């Protein structure tokens, strides 16, 4: 097995699996910590609501499994909700999260609607890089990725930000530290650019650990 996908009832599991199959990856999805533990890399997908996601993870012991996996230094990728729950706290029903990275997940301000911007932020938006990272290799600056979200992460340390996106405000579209990387958009639904990012993850050998 090349990569394990955490199955905690999140909406986009199937799409992630289909993209991995297309890339020829040998993967397994599981809700059991003991199945995830031996994998060389891990994907935490997710669509839905933070509180429900954290409850589902905690009920299955998956929160501890993810923390241990990250601590082991092997590569971990968070997608969408999976990129939010790695922070300390989410404003979505004021939910304590995994706390792997310092920062808070906030809701897009209500004022966006007056500017003609609807929430959720849904559709294809441009993603800009902050520096180089192996996960962004071969992806042109300003490429479009597919987003669907009403909350965004606000890292406490700007150095965590790997990529940004503009939607009324400039938010972190991607964050990374050590062996943990996470993206707010859906690479599995972002056409060739997204597939490239997933392929980059499958080849990623982090030089540092979180």
């Amino acid at each position, binding site marked *: 097995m090349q990569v394990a996908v955490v199955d905690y009832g999140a909406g986009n599991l199937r799409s992630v699996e289909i993209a991995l199959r297309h890339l020829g990856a040998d993967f397994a999805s599981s809700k059991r910590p003991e199945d995830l533990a031996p994998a060389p890399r891990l994907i935490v997908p997710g669509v839905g609501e933070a509180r429900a996601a954290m409850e589902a993870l905690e009920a299955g012991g998956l929160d501890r499994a993810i923390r241990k996996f990250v601590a082991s230094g092997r590569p971990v990728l968070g997608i969408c909700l999976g990129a939010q729950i790695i922070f300390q706290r989410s404003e979505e029903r004021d939910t304590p999260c995994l706390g792997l990275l310092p920062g808070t997940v906030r809701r897009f301000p209500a004022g966006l609607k007056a500017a003609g911007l609807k929430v959720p932020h849904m*559709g294809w938006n441009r993603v800009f890089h902050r520096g180089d990272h192996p996960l962004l290799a071969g992806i042109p600056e300003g490429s479009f990725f597919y987003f669907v979200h009403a909350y965004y992460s606000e890292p406490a340390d700007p150095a965590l930000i790997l990529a940004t996106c503009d939607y*009324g405000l400039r938010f972190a579209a991607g964050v990374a530290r050590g062996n943990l990387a996470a993206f707010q958009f859906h690479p599995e639904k972002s056409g060739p650019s997204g597939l490239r990012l997933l392929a980059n993850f499958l080849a990623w050998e982090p030089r540092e650990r979180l």
Partner: protein
Amino acid sequence: MTVPAQGAASGLARRIIVCLDVRDGRTTKGVRFRENIDVGDPAAMGRFYYEQGADELVFYDITASAEGRGIFLQAVERVAGSLFIPFAVGGGIGTVEDMRRVLLAGAEKVSVNSQAVRRPALIEEGASRFGSQCVVLGLDAARDPESPSGYRVFIDGGRRPTELDALAWAVQAERLGAGEIVLNSIDADGTREGYEIALTRMISAEVGIPVVASGGAGRPEHLAEVLAEARADAALIASMVHFGAYTVREIKQYLAGRGIPVRLE
């Protein structure tokens, strides 16, 4: 630490969504003389539009029989394996179980229409189970001076009038948890003379969720009009591209030339 964006407040592109009808697992219209593809195969057609740069696809199941529905789900699975952009599935969705089946087959979104009018709780149930982003309301409206907003909701493929006012129903659907509205004008549908601008502008201004304009597209100018003037978040097209008059890329190039932000890669 989040700093306000400089220049444009948003880089979000307006979406071009291609709609395909499927009967008994086969697409019913197709580009006849282009490329070497099976125009009846939903996966091949989906792939064709994916490669042209469509932002999203919608597959409507117009099958009547129960056997046909099983074949449709198999087609959805094949579609999911052949393209990597979001797609929605609609037609005959009446229960949470129906929604679960198409989402498990690989669709991102489920479109509900007549069944949600008959039983509005369907929207609420779908949104709480799968999230609002999964639940699209298909709303068929026609002009009616007796309806408060000037437009009445129709169901059953636009054949049956309801008591609902189009604007009131759109607002109610948002409150129930719909994540998006595909707004189809019965008056404009099939005319190829342009989208119903007044209807689209009214609904899009009133709701806080994305509105996809549908019905009436015949030329790229029509998309420019509905995206720029009527403030639609996305535009649905079908026959414009199915019969080969335009490609999605040509339409997007035109829109980009008019200053409308689109994804061109």
